[in-house]
Every structure is written in structure tokens, then in C-alpha cells.
């Protein structure tokens, strides 16, 4: 069969890619990334096969008398395989140029290929043990990638990441143990068949355990703290993979475990997801606004977008609980569509940030400025990513947010009052998120790419190498295509939606999405054509009224005081000041102003200003928890005094206890 062929060639490419980069030959290390790009292309085809109705289960591979490795793929796996492949393909291309001057290029290529392969393994695992092995491999390999440059910053970030991700894994393992205890099955198919017979309390407990476990990976608030640390510490091609794709395996876990294995649940499951989604999206973008480190900013936006995905998924689970399957299908389509979109535009934005940092050697936006002139292509692609993430038409983010709005509004169709109130409020939260995100990306793009260079970092910058640009161009093109042809995307999603809700999603036109339940429709392509036609008409009209017109170039308006300097520009801090003031109950900002005078209060000698916002969750949740754990650890340490006699004593006591109770 064909799918197996593509699968085996793909796997072979990644394995070869890992091996090639470890060989002690500097020159052939580029092939490592070319191989991974080839592998990703094969997996795109494989994913399409899976999602268009060719589920595939490989023969199980026993690894001990009890456990066996089992890989199987269906429509859901296929969709996530496609997501991973699209981003992996362009990140591989980008990496060819990006890693050229990297110190640990060999190790990078090795882990890079392994990382992508482990993510494929996660979304195609067919039983508990395979899933856990793949999951853990993915986490560990990504940990090595975060700490690859061996700096102190990345070591710290890596520690936080390792701890958080293992807390998450612990929850997942606990959930699996409960499932195994009550169903007696290791393989997902068996669990799915018998999960409906579980007592409701157990089902809900498993739901919450999975939510905490996969929520940690996906980065929902308050489990998000590792994201803004680990993503900026990693090299940019890795952040792109982690933020674009790896956190989506958390979403995959929720879709697979909550919606597929556990199936229809009570109404409050959906409500919990909507509430968490709303909180994550608003707080995520609010924290993003306060960041001037371009990669931390993007990392917080991942928290926001995971929230938006959860809004759609939560609405879907809510509809399922009321038996409104066709509405559930719309909402799930919205969630999955946004999952794909976020992978594409967030991957693009991280690559753009990588390209900028490659050129300027700084992460701080306050040191950039005017980059659109030396880096026109990077600037253009970053703009495409920004417009997409802000959900502006006609790009892809707009379609999925529109679908999410529609599904939340449809929440009014559900019979319970609480859903009727929660879902429009979720819609208002989404509107607030959209407006905040727009503000954030006006800042991110405007401060770093427009205006005058703010420091020496932004002067004498060169455009990045062609392979990096091609990697970004591919994702930018996808941002546009997924916006203009929503019917194609929904066609790929709909087998997965069908297998979960029993309804094949919407009957799509290629360029129009319509929802018969609300008699509403949307066509980004139509909007784009309208804008294009109008633009031609406008130019013609202006020409007919004013002729060719004269244009003169001069300085910016300087109030008659010559020599406007870059330091007089609006900074990122100043730009977000109104928002810091409006939301001060959330930010709890602190500011310190020291003014020294020559002659008070008229002649100021110097002013130092420093301001920061309180990292709420770190300070009031994680720091106390860390202190408690440290305290307990200190108490436990008393047992290990280092005295040999005491240890012999322990052994004696243990022996006696065993003799008494063991007999």
C-alpha cells in the first residue's frame, strides 16, 4: 500500500538525518536538515492518506511480556500529522541557513530530527505505553534542545521546563493508571469501547487529570509558566517547532483523551474548558503586551491562542453533552482550524523573530527599529504573521476566530441557562483578546520594524540568507491560502470531526464558509477581491481628480525644532502605558522614579526610571509552592545524616519490621 511507503521513507529520512549530523564531517551537516524537510514532505502525504479515510494500524511490536509498542493512525492523527509536517518542513528549510554559524550544529541536527519524529510518534500512538514513551522522548529531546547553547539562562529555563513537563506527565500517568484499573485495557481502542461504563465520578476525575497533564504541555493558565522561559531560551528554529507544534500535542491529547476515549461527558466539562480558555486567552495576551523581549512576547501569545482553541473545543463538548451534534461539529471545526492556523502563523512569527535576532543580535525590541528597510522580506513575512495572528481578514486566523465566534453564539441554542450566559461571555472575551492582540502586534511590528533605528544593533543589519527566507515564505503563503480557501481546510478537518461527533462538519464551498444554523456566511476571498477591485478604482479616481500628483520628501514633523533623534520616538514601554494603566488591577505595576536636581525643582540633573509588573502566578502560586517543597526536602534530609552507624540502624529496624509483619 502507498501510505506505508510514504511512512517508511519519511521515517528513514529522519533517522538518516539524525545519523548524518553526528558524523564528524562538518560539510555534510546541511543534509541533516534537507533530509528532515524531505521526511516532512513524505509525512504530509501520509497525513493526507490518514485523514481521508485510510486508517492504518501497524502490527504491534512486543517489547516485554506485558507491553507492546502499537502505532495506529486515524483521521485525528492524520490532521495532526499534517500540522506537524507543514511546520517541520519550513522550519527545516529555515534551519539550513540559520544553523550555519551555530557551535553545536551537529547535536542540533541530531535532536532536531529526533524531536520531529517523536512528535509524529505521539500523535500516532495506539496504546498507553507507546504514548507515554513517545511523550517522554518528545519532552526530553526538547529539553536538550532548549539547553543546547549551555548558557546559564537556558539552563535555568530548561530546569523550569523539565520540572513542569514532568508534573504534567505525572498527571497523565495517573489518569492512564485509573483508566487501566477500571477498564483493564492498555490499547486506546479497548479503553474507548468500555469507557462509557465507568462510574461518572471516575470519568470526571480522569477528565481533570488529563486536563492538568495536557494543559501543562499546551500552556493553559496557571500552568503556563514554562512557556515564556523555555521558548525564548531555545534557538529560534526550535522555539518555532515548540510553540508552533509541540504545544499542539497537548491539544491532541485533549482531543484524543477527552473527546475520543472518554466520549460524551457532562455539561460542566465543556464549561470548564470555555472558562479556562477565556482566562488563558485574555491573561496570555495581557502579559504578552508587557514584554519587550520579542520571543517572550510570542511565547505569551501561544498561551492566548491555546485559550482560543479551548473556547472552540469547550463549546463543542458543551454541545455534545446536550446532544446537539451538528453544533458540536461546528465548534470542533473552529477549534481544530485554529490549531492548524496557530501552528502556521506562530511558526512563521518565531522564524521571523529568529531572522531578526540573527541580524540584530538582540531580543529586545527597544533596541530595534526601522528594520523593514534593511530586511524587507523578513519584515513582510513578519507582517503577514502579525496580521494573521490578529485575525484580520483575509488571512487564516480570521476564519477560525470567526468560526469560534459563531460557535459561541450558537451556545444560545443549548437548553441550560448557564451555557446561554457563559458562551456569549466567551465571545466577548474573544473580542477583547482580538483587540488586545491587535494592539500587541502593532507594538511588536511597529516598534521593531518601523521608525528609526533605536540603537547600534539596528544599524548595518543585513537581510537573512535565502533558505531562511524560503522557509518563512512557505508559511506566509499558507497563512494566505488557509484564509482564502477555508473549504479545503475544513475538508481535511472533517473526517476527524466526523469520527468525534458523528457529523461531518460543515458542507463547505471552496472559498465560502456558511453556517446554515445562523444563516451566516463568510468569504475572505470575496473580501480580498472587493478590496482589490476598490483599490484599482480608487487609484483611477485619484488620477482623474488630481492627475499624477507631486510628491516631496522631507523630514518628519519636528515642531520646528530641528534634528529629531531616534530617542524621541515612542518606545514599546510608552506604547503600552495606557494598557498598563487600564488593567493595573491585573498587572499590579510597580514604578520607581529617582530624580536628582541641581536646583530643586527647576534644574533636573538626571532621572532614572524603572518599572515592572508583578508576575502574579509566579509570585503567589509557584514561589510559595517551591518554598513548601524546599521545606519538606530539608526535613527529609535529616534522615540522611551521612553517619554509617545510623544507616546500619535503619537496616536493622527494617529487618525487624519485615520479620514481624512479613511472616
Amino acid at each position: 500500500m502507498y501510505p506505508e511507503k510514504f511512512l517508511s521513507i519519511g521515517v528513514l529520512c529522519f533517522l538518516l538525518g539524525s545519523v548524518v549530523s553526528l558524523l564528524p564531517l562538518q560539510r555534510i551537516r546541511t543534509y541533516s536538515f534537507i533530509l528532515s524537510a524531505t521526511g516532512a514532505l513524505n509525512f504530509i502525504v501520509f497525513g493526507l492518506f490518514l485523514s481521508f479515510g485510510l486508517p492504518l494500524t501497524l502490527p504491534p511490536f512486543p517489547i516485554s511480556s506485558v507491553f507492546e509498542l502499537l502505532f495506529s493512525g486515524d483521521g485525528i492523527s492524520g490532521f495532526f500529522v499534517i500540522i506537524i509536517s507543514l511546520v517541520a518542513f519550513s522550519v527545516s528549510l529555515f534551519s539550513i541557513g540559520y544553523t550555519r554559524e551555530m557551535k553545536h550544529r551537529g547535536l542540533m541536527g541530531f535532536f532536531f530530527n529526533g524531536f520531529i519524529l517523536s512528535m509524529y510518534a505521539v500523535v500516532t500512538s495506539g496504546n498507553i505505553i507507546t504514548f507515554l514513551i513517545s511523550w517522554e522522548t518528545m519532552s526530553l529531546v526538547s529539553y536538550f534542545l532548549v539547553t543546547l547553547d549551555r548558557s546559564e539562562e537556558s539552563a535555568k529555563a530548561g530546569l523550569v521546563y523539565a520540572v513542569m513537563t514532568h508534573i504534567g506527565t505525572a498527571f497523565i500517568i495517573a489518569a492512564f493508571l485509573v483508566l487501566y484499573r477500571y477498564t483493564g485495557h492498555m490499547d486506546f481502542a479497548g479503553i474507548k469501547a468500555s469507557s462509557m461504563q465507568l462510574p461518572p465520578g471516575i470519568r470526571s476525575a480522569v477528565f481533570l487529570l488529563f486536563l492538568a497533564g495536557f494543559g501543562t504541555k499546551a500552556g493553559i493558565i496557571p500552568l503556563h509558566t514554562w512557556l515564556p522561559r523555555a521558548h525564548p531560551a531555545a534557538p529560534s528554529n526550535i522555539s518555532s517547532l515548540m510553540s508552533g507544534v509541540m504545544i499542539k500535542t497537548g491539544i491532541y491529547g485533549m482531543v484524543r483523551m477527552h473527546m475520543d476515549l472518554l466520549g460524551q461527558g457532562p455539561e460542566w466539562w465543556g464549561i470548564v474548558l470555555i472558562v479556562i480558555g477565556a482566562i488563558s486567552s485574555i491573561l496570555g495576551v495581557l502579559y504578552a503586551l508587557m514584554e519587550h523581549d520579542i520571543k517572550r512576547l510570542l511565547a505569551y501569545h501561544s498561551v492566548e491562542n491555546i485559550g482560543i482553541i479551548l473556547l472552540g473545543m469547550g463549546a463543542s463538548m458543551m454541545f455534545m453533552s446536550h446532544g446537539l451534534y451538528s453544533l458540536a461539529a461546528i465548534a470542533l471545526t473552529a477549534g481544530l482550524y485554529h490549531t492548524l492556523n496557530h501552528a502556521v502563523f506562530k511558526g512563521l512569527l518565531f522564524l521571523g523573530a529568529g531572522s531578526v535576532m540573527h541580524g540584530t543580535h538582540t531580543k529586545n525590541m527597544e533596541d530595534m527599529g526601522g528594520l523593514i528597510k534593511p530586511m524587507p522580506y523578513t519584515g513582510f513575512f513578519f507582517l503577514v504573521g502579525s496580521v494573521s495572528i490578529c485575525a484580520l481578514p483575509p488571512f487564516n486566523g480570521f476564519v477560525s476566530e470567526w468560526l469560534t465566534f459563531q460557535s459561541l453564539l450558537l451556545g444560545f441554542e443549548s437548553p441550560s441557562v448557564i451555557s446561554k450566559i457563559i458562551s456569549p461571555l466567551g465571545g466577548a472575551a474573544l473580542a477583547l483578546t482580538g483587540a488586545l492582540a491587535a494592539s500587541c502586534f502593532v507594538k511588536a511590528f511597529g516598534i521593531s520594524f518601523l521608525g528609526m533605528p533605536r540603537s547600534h544593533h539596528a544599524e548595518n543589519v543585513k537581510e537573512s540568507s535565502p533558505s531562511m527566507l524560503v522557509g518563512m515564505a512557505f508559511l506566509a503563503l499558507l497563512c494566505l491560502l488557509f484564509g482564502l480557501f477555508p473549504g479545503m481546510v475544513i475538508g481535511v478537518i472533517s473526517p476527524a470531526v466526523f469520527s468525534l461527533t458523528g457529523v461531518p462538519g460543515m458542507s463547505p464551498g471552496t472559498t465560502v464558509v456558511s453556517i446554515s444554523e445562523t444563516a451566516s456566511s463568510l468569504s475572505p476571498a470575496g473580501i480580498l477581491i472587493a478590496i482589490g477591485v476598490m483599490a484599482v478604482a480608487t487609484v483611477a479616481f485619484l488620477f482623474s481628480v488630481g492627475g499624477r500628483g507631486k510628491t516631496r520628501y522631507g523630514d518628519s514633523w519636528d515642531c520646528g525644532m530641528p534634528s529629531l533623534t531616534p530617542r524621541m520616538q515612542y518606545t514599546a514601554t510608552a506604547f503600552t502605558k495606557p494598557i498598563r494603566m487600564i488593567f493595573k488591577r491585573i498587572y499590579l505595576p510597580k514604578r520607581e522614579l529617582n530624580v536628582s536636581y541641581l536646583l530643586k525643582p527647576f534644574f533636573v540633573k538626571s532621572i532614572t526610571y524603572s518599572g515592572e509588573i508583578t508576575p502574579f502566578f509566579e509570585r503567589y502560586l509557584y514561589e510559595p509552592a517551591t518554598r513548601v517543597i524546599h521545606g519538606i526536602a530539608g526535613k527529609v534530609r535529616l534522615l540522611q545524616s551521612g553517619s554509617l552507624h545510623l544507616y546500619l540502624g535503619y537496616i536493622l529496624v527494617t529487618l525487624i519490621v519485615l520479620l514481624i509483619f512479613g511472616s
Partner: protein
Amino acid sequence: MEYLQFLIILFFSPLIQGMIKTTKARMQGRVGPGVFQPYYDLIRLMKKEMVISHVTSWIFKATPYIVFTSTLAAAMITPVLTTKASFGIMGDVIALIYILATGRFFMALAGLDAGTSFGGEGSSREMAVAILVEPMMMLSIFTAAISVGSTNIARIAEAQGMVYSPSHLLALSAFVVAIIAETGRIPVDNPDTHLELTMIHEGMLLEYSGRYLALMEWAHYMKQMLLFTLGVDIFFPVGIPGDTAFAGLGVSFALYFLKMCCMAVLMAAIESTRAKLRFFQLPSLLGGAFVLAFLSLLTYIMMGR
């Protein structure tokens, strides 16, 4: 016929602006310019030479076209004289808000492009106001959309039975605040000022001149009339026909013109009788409007009308 109704917004929006200005002048005891003054201004600007800062990039030059054409695209999906909405398939009321947001996004970028403080200040404030307005506007529209069961503007306008219910009155009051904020009028912004401390919208346009300025101003007039039209469609759709019969269109045009005049007078009255709020007092005004919109939704859910 119905394909061309957006041209009404295109060509009459400067007139509405002129009417507001004249009414305001009369209320303040001045004679004021004639109602056609905005047309003269636009034509004059289009013929003038442009001065562009050499700091700016292509964003600065593309923005006037993006803002102007996206506002036109938004006008295309709005029923003006008839609900036989030809371009309704292109998008609904949510799409309309996002199309307008696209224009604002690029306008704010253009504000930052010249590297001056005024532009940055205008962009920063404009985006902050948008953050407060957008959710409130959405929520007030949601009430209408939910009661009709559709977000398609034509469908909302056709369901004319719900006009005087409590939930609609609450939503309407929130929507009026949203219109004031979106069109940059007192008490949120002062459209007549060029004082750096108070300007929001004008700050972003400060570097523009000539035909680019004309496009930006015209787009602003269109957005204003578009929001009036949207408000009328949602909250006072009385007399809007579902077909394009000639007699019906005549009545519809007369009624529409009357409604626009009322909106213009209302705006002028609000502008003449209120003082501009301090920027950081805006959250209480706009947050209050958000509460109204939320109450309207609750009322609809609890009372069913």
C-alpha cells in the same frame, strides 16, 4: 440595483460629516461652514502636493489605500436601502467589525512609521480605546444577533419585531457609546483638535498630506456613516424593504435619509453638550457601556425579549 447600495455611503458620507459640523456650529451660536464643505476639502486635498517623511516605509504609502478600500468592503456587506443584501455572502456583522479593525491596525502602524512621538502617541491611544470598545460593541450586537438567530446583518434588519424590548434599549445605549468612541468624537476624542495632549485619531494622521490625507479623511467619514447605518439596521430597521421595487426604495431612501439626519443631530448634540473626558477616565465610561451591553444580554436570556 442592490449591488450598488454601498455607493450611497461612499458619496453621502462627507455630507453627513458636513451636517454634523453645521449643526454643531449652530448649537454653539456660530454660522459655521456649509454642509458641502467636506466635499470641497477632499477635492482640494486630492489636488495638492504631498510631503512624505523620508523615515517612512511602504507601510505609510499602502495604509491610505488599505484603510479606504477596507472601509468600502465593510460598506458593501451592510444593507443600506434594501435587505436584499447582495454581498451578504462575503461576511456578517462580525466580519464587518474585523474588516474595520484591519483598517485601524494599519492606521496605527502608519502612525509609528514616521518615528515621531505624535504618531506613536496617537497609535497607542487608539489601540487602547479599541480594546475597550470592541468587546462592548460585540456584546451589544450579540444581543441582537441572538434574538434573531443570525449574525447576518440583513437577517437582523429583517426581523423588525423586537425594537422596543428592554434588552434592545440597553444594547442600543451601549452601541451609541461604541459609535462615539469609534468615530473619535467627544467625550472620547476631539475631532477638531490638533493639540498633542488631547488628540488620538488626528495624531496618527499627522504626517499625512495631500491625496493620502484625503483618502484617510474620507475613509473616516465613511466609517462614521457606516456605523450609523449599522446602528439603524440593527436597532431601527423600520421601513427597510426586502426587495428592490422602485416605490419601496423611494420610501426607504427618504426614511434612511431622515434617520441619518437624526443620528447627525444626535452626535452634534452630544458633542456640544459634553466635555472631553480625560483619557484615563475613559475606562469608566466604556466599562459602564460594557455593563449595559452585558445587562442587555442577561435581560434577553432571563426575560426572553
